């Protein structure tokens, strides 16, 4: 029985299904943990305790929030396109699950061994834009529509520098397989790509923040301009799903950055997956730190940063990398 089960699990399809289930659990836990962490970081930066009352040090606060979100009534506004309105949260959360598949937590611990892992993540993370569009359009709300328009322009623009920086690393390693790229940086700190490709790392991280709509690039949900942007009209768990998707994308971006630039599972003493998680969460902490420090940029400035700085720099970096790779060969 167990042998059969093991065999089933070791089958690629079985492995994938197991991985998908595990990823969903991970996403849920992660969403709650990150939400708690974000509040605590915000609290400490603002010299207050953050959530404190529910459970010891407010540890149960995420559960209380989840309970609240689940029990709230789901309301679709009058005149909304019901189909699009309800489908949008699903469209936003479903691709993230796939995005987790090729992330190598260790040489063995990965959802799916695919040699195009990087491409897979890039392809499916683009779907988030679509979800925001549908949400914005389906809500029959002007704020939502403006938020959606901003979201599209922003993510389409920032996808380019993101791709450029990723490509530079892919050129250097000669693979689109995240595990292979991570494995190429396991010869100690100096082999990490963050030291080899610092510019690409910076570009990737900035674009990643923009792609996940985090402050200071959180224009699609700029609350002082558009109240809540594309999710103005969402209540209850539908909002919760958007929220979950946003935090999961954060993890994906940071995990990819870890695999690409920070040596993946490389690290002494502790087993690889812990190092991978530690690096990922360190990057997430940096994102939170940014959020609670900086004002929001304006829309044209956002695009200027992308077109005038990130894309030229990314291109230059890419060309230089290609030249050096060719020369070394």
């Amino acid at each position, binding site marked *: 029985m167990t042998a059969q089960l093991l065999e089933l699990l070791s089958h690629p399809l079985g492995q994938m299904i197991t991985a998908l289930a595990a990823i969903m659990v991970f996403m849920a836990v992660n969403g709650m943990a990150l939400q708690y962490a974000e509040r605590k970081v*915000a609290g400490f930066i*603002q010299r207050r305790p953050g959530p404190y009352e529910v459970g010891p040090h407010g540890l149960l606060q995420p559960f209380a929030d989840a309970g609240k979100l689940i029990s709230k009534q789901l309301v679709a506004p009058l005149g909304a396109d019901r189909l699009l309105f309800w489908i949008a949260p699903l469209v936003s959360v479903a691709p993230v699950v796939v995005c987790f598949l090729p992330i190598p937590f260790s040489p063995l611990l990965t959802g799916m061994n695919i040699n195009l892992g990087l491409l897979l993540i890039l392809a499916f993370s683009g779907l988030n834009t679509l979800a925001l569009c549908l949400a914005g359009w389906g809500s029959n709300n002007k704020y939502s529509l*403006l938020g959606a328009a901003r979201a599209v322009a922003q993510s389409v623009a920032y996808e380019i520098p993101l791709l450029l920086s990723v490509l530079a690393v892919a050129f250097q390693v000669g693979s689109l397989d995240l595990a292979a790229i991570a494995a190429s940086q396991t010869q100690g700190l100096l082999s990490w790509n963050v030291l080899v490709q610092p510019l690409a790392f910076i570009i990737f991280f900035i674009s990643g923040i923009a792609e996940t709509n985090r402050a200071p690039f959180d224009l699609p949900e700029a609350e002082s301009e558009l109240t809540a942007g594309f999710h103005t009209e969402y209540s209850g768990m539908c909002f919760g799903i958007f929220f979950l998707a946003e935090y999961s994308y954060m993890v994906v971006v940071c995990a990819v950055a870890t695999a690409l630039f920070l040596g993946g599972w490389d690290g002494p003493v502790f087993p690889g997956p812990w190092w991978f998680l530690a690096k990922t969460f360190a990057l997430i902490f940096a994102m939170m730190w940014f959020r609670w420090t900086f004002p929001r940029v304006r829309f044209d400035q956002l695009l200027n940063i992308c077109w005038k700085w990130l894309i030229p720099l990314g291109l230059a970096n890419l060309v230089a990398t290609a030249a050096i790779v060719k020369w070394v060969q």
Partner: protein
Amino acid sequence: MSQDVNSRLTGDFYTAPFGPRLEPDGDTLVLNMGPQHPATHGVLRVVVELDGEYIRRAEPVLGYIHRMHEKMGEVKTWVQYLPNMGRVDYLHALAWNWAYVGAVEKLMGIEVPPRAEYIRVITCELNRINSHLLWWGAYLLDLGAFTPILYAFADREHIMDILQMVTGSRLTYCYYRFGGVSGDVNDEFIRRTREFVADFKKRLPMYRALVTDNIILRGRCEDIGVLTPEMARRYGATGPVLRGSGVAYDVRRAEPYSIYDRLDFDIPTGRKGDVMDRYEVRMAELDQCLRIVEQALDALPTGAHIHPDLPERFIPPKGEVYYAVEGARGKIGVYLLSDGGPKPYRVKLRSPGFSNLSLFAELAQGTLLADAVSILGSLDLVIPEIDR
């Protein structure tokens, strides 16, 4: 969709100015910012017509928290109207206190003891710091920075504690009385105020490092919402909004009241008149407030805190009076008309926010939505004060 909106708006008096031009040409979007909106700090409604993200027209709509303060003045006795003043502008309540008290004192010819004058200056300037700090935090909140407002509140807390010691309240003060102030200050107050001044001087560089020098903030503020001195005059703008445009008009200097002519302080002005200049003027005013408080504390005379023999009932003679003070938002004017009865015949309050807000429609034209939020924030509006 747009037609639908049109038919829904036609019944609305306030959208009438949008009138025939409200006809959509397929490109514009009429958007209501407010009355419940995170950027309007209170119940202000701004009807904006958007072309993409650009604002074609913006029309502020007032009256959502009109409480008839002026009319209330006509049904209350002269003394009873005092607590209303703290509620007109809850952020700089003491300036409004002062404006009304000063007007009645002028009308009745009541002399204020010097100690009371100094106490008024100290408390009023502390209150001004308080108001500017809240503006600072709220403005940055508008721009998407969440943390500064809590740092500002940490400092505000000290001021509120200090003011609570003498006034007993923390926000809507009713402290000044005809002929003085309601309670004397003690040594503890003076000690803590000096402490605060020293502490706050150390905090200001942190503010600068965290926010003022931040390139994102500068990008959001510089060359945005440029207000020419001519336009500021045309709309009757006062306070930091006017001074940001380079006009060094401050009631404390132009029509000195109380003991301000004896104090040494500068009037910071801007050059370009953009949002950044208004920001810098307010930040520079924090320094000046500290200077004034220090000087006043040094020179605080002894004596009574309130005129010793005041009449039992305040019945001013027939006549009219206008008295203006400098509030955190600009010139606060109180006009009183007395018919010799126990109640004012007419009370007119000139609130600086009203004039400053009226600028917005013209300033916001042609800007991005995000810039309009920035401009709206830079005017430092307190909606209850505008509606009165």
